[in-house]
């Protein structure tokens, strides 16, 4: 069976959806030359009316995509770096995601915002190094965060077919992941359905994006000691609360591994919900980035702020002790 590369999976999803549905088009910066490797070959196949090279006008072209979507087109907007989302928070949150509600359902805005690089990479400086996905969850915008090539294909496909705005974070740290997969197995994956990557009895570790792979490695390392279940929500909004509950009901213990900042983050939300609604036999724990700004210029300082495997192993042991 062929090895599928994460970036190739996204490229395939775009190619397949653009072939299937003429309403789908792609726009972004430097996509003619496929700088991020996501758009490779698409200009050649679909031409400049389906692959729009944009000037450096994020606010303008994000709104432009909303306008095109109002007429029934299905734009995919590629941004090179997650911090650009700060620039277009208004356009995504306050414009695109408000049209359906404000118009009483007359209009839908099926735009997909694709972040192929997510700035985790150490040393890129303070303005390229954060993970702003919880902002969008907080504002009620659909958010997906695929960890594997097959999920990247399936979730990007569903995001494009979804009638609402969807932000797709494809973490750069997962871009190198390869998976042996039959191409026939590449199918849409519904939003809002999590995935148990590894079954376990003692503790549920919720991990998101590239951290799924760290969680799996730690679970393997601790296998003699503790039976760890690794749950990947895959979509952060809508969130698979039922899937999480099923896992936590069995294990009774919860650790959340989240690459975003601590306050008002996904980890806090997951723990709050589990505490309110699920049966926990030990206090839950979370591992996150610190609150506040990210200092990413010195790789060692940058890495010091990112959740790591040692912290996860320590948290799992602590939760097992019930303290």
């Amino acid at each position, binding site marked *: 069976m062929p090895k599928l590369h994460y970036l190739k999976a996204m490229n395939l999803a775009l190619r397949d959806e653009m072939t299937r549905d003429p309403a789908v088009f792609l726009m972004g910066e430097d996509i003619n030359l496929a700088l991020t490797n996501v758009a490779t070959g698409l200009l050649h196949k679909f031409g400049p009316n389906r692959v729009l090279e944009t000037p450096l006008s994020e606010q303008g072209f994000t709104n*432009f995509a909303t306008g095109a979507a109002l007429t029934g087109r299905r734009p995919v907007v590629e941004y090179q770096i997650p911090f650009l989302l700060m620039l277009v928070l208004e356009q995504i949150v306050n414009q695109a995601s408000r049209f359906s509600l404000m118009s009483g359902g007359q*209009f839908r805005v099926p735009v997909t915002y694709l972040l192929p690089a997510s700035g985790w990479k150490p040393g890129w400086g303070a303005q390229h190094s954060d993970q702003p996905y919880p902002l969008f969850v907080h504002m009620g915008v659909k958010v997906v965060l695929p960890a594997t090539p097959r999920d990247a294909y399936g979730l990007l496909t569903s995001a494009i077919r979804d009638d609402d705005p969807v932000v797709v974070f494809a973490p750069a740290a997962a871009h190198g992941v390869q998976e042996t997969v039959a191409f026939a197995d590449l199918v849409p994956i519904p939003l809002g359905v999590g995935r148990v990557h590894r079954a376990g009895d003692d503790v549920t570790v919720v991990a998101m994006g590239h951290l799924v792979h760290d969680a799996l490695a730690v679970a393997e390392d601790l296998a003699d000691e503790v039976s760890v279940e690794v749950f990947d929500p895959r979509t952060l909004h809508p969130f698979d609360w039922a899937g999480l509950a099923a896992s936590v009901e069995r294990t009774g213990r919860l650790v959340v591994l989240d690459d975003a900042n601590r306050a008002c983050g996904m980890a806090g939300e997951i723990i709050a919900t589990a505490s309110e609604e699920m049966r926990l036999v030990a206090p839950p724990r979370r591992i996150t980035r610190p609150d506040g700004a990210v200092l990413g210029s010195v790789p060692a300082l940058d890495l010091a702020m990112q959740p790591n495997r040692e912290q996860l192993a320590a948290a799992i042991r602590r939760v097992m002790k019930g303290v």
Partner: protein
Amino acid sequence: MTTGEAPGPPTGDGHAQLYRTIRLIRRFEERAIELVQSGDIPGIHPCIGQEAAAAGVCAALRPDDVVLSNHRGHGHLLAKGCDPGRLMAEILGRVTGVGRGGGGSLHPADLDSGVYGATATVGHGAAIATGVGWALAQEGGDRVAVAFFGDGAVNQGALLESFNLAALWRVPVLLVCENNLYATTLAAHVGNAGSVVGRAEAFGIPASTVDGQDPVVVRDAARQAVDRARAGGGPSVLELLTYRYQGHHTFELKTHLLYRDKAEVARWQERDPLRIQAERLGAQERELIDAEIEATLEEAVRSALESPEPDPADPLRYLYADGLRTRGGVSYA
């Protein structure tokens, strides 16, 4: 473009139609202000005094053209053909409103009349309209998109970014600046360096400034731009010199902010679009139209007030196009 040109001869259906639209907007807003004062409507941004802009521009459009409106949008919707009863119901927050009460006065949208929305982030509707116009052109027809915005909006970055995109990609969009001389209390000459036309010209977009109080002048200028867009000539910017007689928002009925003197308001009221257009009609014809509009609005207000309010138990009903229901704010009841 048409600056300084004499308006066409005062004959034909065009004049009655323009008068009807202006009169409808004027009286609609006067009725809406009464409903603000009675506490039925939370507040509105009145466009009284600026009716010729909406009436003239929309007279140059076809029903299948698309308008993106802004916070001062009642006139745009009515001029584009929105049903006054359903618009009144919308700003009263009733389920019979064009957006089932979800848009209100600030954000009414009406697919049937081609108004794709009214965004209140000043200037950003122009960028959305640019995307609409591009997509309409891709469909292969000759439909155009129009954005209305104020003199304050021309200082927004997103709007200027859309000028660039519209010009680069020859988008069939008409960008209409209703320059009413104020952005809330900020006078245009204090807030705007350079000119609206100058901004457009910097991007290579044909632009002109015309008398926004005369609906015939507005219509003819808009028609020229719309014809060019339909023929593949790309975007235009039209600056309409106009004035609002009321405050920025009905909250000014209570605050009595002082930022323009009475003489200035009175001077502009001498060039009232309603009067300018009324003079082009015979008295009898005018009276018939006036009576028809009063009856329409009487019924609009009555039926809107009698309409049911949306169910507060389901406030996010249309948040997601696919009907997704997310968790409520309280997890135990």
